[in-house]
């Protein structure tokens, strides 16, 4: 179950030791990273990073290039397993279970925590087969797969655009459509969390806005964590924002985390202020 009764997410950094003064039972923490350290071989990419992601909210990770945003995000679904020689300490809790533990069923975890990548990466298969890929693996019935494909394509606003050419190759779609198809593909296995790593960085402004609109629609049902370089996008589209920065040893740290409004309008840390006002570096 989710960790209920914790103080709102953005205060956890300061109150990690102290108990929260007022329990707020209606706040559900879906994903809770606690003092996470991450190593690529000898290089430490994250240092004591903590982040409490609220369920059915959009949490944005911002910060300069190389500060470990992608690394942090990929810890949540254990994609770092693909890179040999990596090591993680600390805890990332989902429903009370530590994702980083060696006992974690990675396959199940990744069904629960979906991912959207920086570049749209549809399979060189038909539109239908792309979305049906996950359900097919899960062994769902044909009828259920058909339903879920339609549902996911509707959820991503693609259905009307592609319903007459479901059997055609997904590679003929535009970049924005491809990215929405990838989102539909991720949603088809019914995840609870969707991780997005700069999902709009390769898209034009209109396609970008379309993705942001979708995020707003989807957050009623999904918990979304998005990495973005685009500060306007974080300010526009997210409920919470975490600002990350490298320390002297180039390890990424979470400098400040709170409601997006506070981070952008009333940052507590001067480094956050420097970054969001563009005075950084």
């Amino acid at each position, binding site marked *: 179950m989710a960790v209920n009764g914790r103080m709102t997410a953005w205060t956890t950094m300061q109150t990690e030791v102290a108990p929260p003064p007022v329990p707020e039972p209606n706040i559900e923490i879906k994903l809770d990273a606690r003092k996470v350290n991450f190593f690529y071989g000898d290089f430490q990419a994250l240092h004591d990073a903590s982040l409490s992601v609220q369920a059915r909210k959009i949490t944005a990770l911002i910060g300069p290039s190389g500060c470990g945003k992608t690394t942090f995000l990929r810890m949540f679904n254990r*994609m770092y397993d*693909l890179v040999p020689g990596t090591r993680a300490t600390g805890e990332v809790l989902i429903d009370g279970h530590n994702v980083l533990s060696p006992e974690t069923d990675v*396959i199940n*975890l*990744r*069904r629960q925590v*979906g991912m959207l990548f920086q570049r749209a*990466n*549809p*399979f060189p298969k038909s539109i239908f087969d792309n979305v049906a890929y996950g359900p097919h693996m899960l062994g769902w019935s044909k009828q259920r797969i058909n339903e879920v494909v339609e549902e996911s394509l509707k959820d991503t606003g693609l259905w009307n655009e592609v319903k007459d050419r479901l059997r055609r190759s997904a590679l003929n779609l535009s970049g924005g459509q491809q990215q929405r198809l990838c989102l539909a593909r991720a949603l088809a296995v019914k995840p609870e969390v969707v991780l997005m790593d700069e999902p709009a960085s390769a898209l034009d402004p209109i396609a970008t806005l379309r993705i942001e609109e979708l995020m707003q629609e989807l957050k009623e049902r999904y918990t979304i964590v998005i990495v973005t370089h685009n500060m306007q996008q974080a300010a526009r589209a997210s409920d919470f924002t975490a600002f990350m920065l490298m320390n002297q040893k180039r390890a990424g740290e979470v400098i400040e985390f709170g409601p997006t409004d506070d981070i952008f309008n009333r940052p507590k840390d001067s480094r956050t202020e420097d970054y969001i006002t563009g005075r950084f570096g």
Partner: protein
Amino acid sequence: MVPTPLVAASHQRPLVSGDRVFSVIAYGAAALIMLIAVIFIIALFIPALPAITKFGLGFFTSRTWDPVRNQFGALTAIYGTLVTSAIALLIAFPIGLGAALFLAEDARLSLVRGPLSFLIELLAGIPSVVIGLWAFFILTPLMRDKVDPFLQHTVGFLALFKGTPTGYGFLTAGLVLAIMVLPIMIALSRDVIRAVPRELREASLALGATNAETIWSVILPYARVGITGAVLLSLGRALGETIAVTMVIGNTMQISASLFASGYTLPSVIANEFTEATGNVYLGSLFYLGVVLVLITIVVNVLARLLIWRFSGSARASA
């Protein structure tokens, strides 16, 4: 700035004519190579002409190989070539693909990947006569005493495994060919599999697919064209391989359903008989076999190259 265009102009002229010289040399070299190829094929055709005019296309359907009566046909040798190559691919394809997947995909191998690849290249470089020597003295007795009797006990009811095993014949030759094409098969398939864009692999794994599911549903379909190319290139090698096959196939002009039987292949007929071929028709028939072999291997190799090119092109385009 005034001097800039002057400098640029003075540099430009020699560059342009240098380009021209280079392209003339490049086109000249390409034309020369094509010319050599054409001359070679013609040079092969001319001595084959006596046989071509005498036997025509019937050469391909005739099983006769009778130097005494001066009657020749290629069917027996074509049969041997096809059967041994087929056996080679049947063995080398699954093993080679499995090894290639293992080499390309298994993250635990990252440290030994280099040495393993080097080993495979090393295997590919072993002269075929050495493999033939090994096969003749070690593999043949092993086949006769162990493998063939075992096959006869288990699947001996099939016509393929009837007859007395001598250790020589189609099966042993096919096995030797399999060993010889395995390094090519592994190295090429490994490269093809590694060229599959990482994003696709990640997309599949991020959806909760297992490694096996990812390989089966994403990597192999994507790499199919390239892997087909690798198989064809291996086939090209198997079809033309001469000496190692000649040492173990038994060199008997016969077509037999049994894989334990001795046979002949196109290259081994040529290798064995060119010194004793007397008369225009006999020698011509050997050249005719050569023409057939060259045509088959050219077609197979060109096809293989085209497939591999097409694959690496499409891999790059969507990478």
